[in-house]
């Protein structure tokens, strides 16, 4: 464990490294949300139409709803295990800033779930008839959006630590808060597909991410503290 002499930055780095190492020991946990996302993306052509032109219209919605649901699944892994085995308690007692350490966990979590999701999204997008030159826009919007979603989700995951059936409750808490992310993100994806200028919605998404960056770690730390009491 960290000694009190370790700086806040070092503590955050150690937490991030530990989470990365743990994640690569259990790759199935990383793969499951991605597989889930691909399955959801497959369900839409099967339920709507195999016609590419119509799928292309639905693609932003399919990709974003799929991404939000899959990141909710992934949020289950963010704090739950560490709360159960007492790691979070050690974090809180370590004398280091809990906010900093949880922020490091959240960023690592995004690196392990949100970023991979954004990177495989073009596969699903291509299958939905999205043209190749729209892919950078798809990746950018999903990467930024899933980062904002991780920040909001960290608060939800922290709050539901003390609850009995955390899973459903986590979705109930987090999804309404994610509405702006969905709106701006899906719009950016739609513009990317249509060949428009994706900058305005991306800026708005970025503004949400920045606001989340300043407030969410504090709220998440408060939430986790309450759960640990």
């Amino acid at each position, binding site marked *: 464990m960290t000694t009190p002499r370790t700086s806040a930055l070092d503590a955050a780095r150690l937490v991030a490294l530990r989470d990365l190492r743990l994640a690569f020991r259990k790759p199935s946990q990383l793969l499951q949300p991605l597989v889930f996302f691909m399955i959801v993306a497959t369900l839409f052509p099967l339920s709507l139409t195999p016609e590419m032109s119509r799928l292309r219209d639905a693609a932003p919605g399919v990709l974003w709803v799929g991404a939000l649901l899959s990141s909710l699944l992934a949020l289950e892994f963010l704090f739950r295990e560490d709360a159960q085995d007492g790691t979070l308690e050690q974090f809180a007692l370590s004398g280091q800033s809990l906010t900093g350490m949880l922020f490091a966990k959240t960023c690592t979590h995004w690196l392990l779930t949100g970023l991979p999701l954004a990177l495989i999204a073009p596969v699903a997008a291509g299958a939905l008839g999205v043209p190749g030159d729209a892919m950078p826009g798809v990746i950018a919007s999903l990467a930024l959006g899933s980062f904002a979603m991780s920040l909001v989700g960290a*608060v939800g995951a922290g*709050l*539901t630590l*003390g*609850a*009995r*059936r*955390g899973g459903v*409750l986590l979705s*109930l*808490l987090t*999804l*309404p*808060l994610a*509405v*702006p992310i969905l*709106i*701006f993100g899906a*719009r950016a994806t739609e513009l990317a597909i249509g060949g428009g200028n994706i900058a305005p919605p991306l800026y*708005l998404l970025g503004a*949400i991410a920045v*606001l989340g960056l300043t*407030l969410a770690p504090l*709220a998440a730390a*408060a*939430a986790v503290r*309450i*759960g640990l*009491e």
Partner: protein
Amino acid sequence: MATWTWFHRLGSPPHVYAFAQRWAKWFGAAAALSMLVAVYGGLVLAPPDYQQKDAFRIVYVHAPAAWLSLMIYTTMAVSAAVALVWRMKVAHAAAAACAPVGAWFTVVALGTGMLWGKPMWGAYWVWDPRLTSELVLLFLYFGYMGLRAGIEDPVKADKASAVLAVVGVVNVPIIKFSVEWWNSLHQTATVMQLGKPTMDSRMLWPLLLMFLAFALYFIAVLLTRLRAELLRRERNASWVREAVGAA
């Protein structure tokens, strides 16, 4: 020193209980009176709208309910923030008392909005930005109440739901902005602004009075619910004996 006594009293359950006991009925009476006058003014005296005819009278419940749903959420979040910062038990009780009332008035705003939409838009539901953000607000209330119900330890439930209320209230303006932004991109031709005609003063005064009536009503309900919450939470405190007048 003296300026802070009211604040300390606000944190003291027996004081707040006594205050609520004394004032709830007066707020309730004022609310009932003003509501009756506003209903008469709005439904009977006000002239019909030149476009919407008498359908516009729905505004007298829709607008105050929509306003109240947002006001209650804000009140809840402010109490929650006060409770977190000053560790005030009374404020947690007040936040807990707000949520179900707020959810009910969100339902009223949605229901009356839909009933108004049918003659005006030709459908009960259109993705109007106001109705849509009202729906998201309802989900926020459900999330809050779900979290409260999902945590067994009452102290933890108080604190966790307080954090959620604060996070939620930061999000409300962002949600409203994003929904309006979204709607402006997909402008549908038939969308018509609810309740924003140039208002005749004979239409306006009952509406303003109804806003006041709903606010007074909410204070009365909140004070009553707060008393119930305080009795339940403080059941082992000595002041309860006096308050309920037991032998």
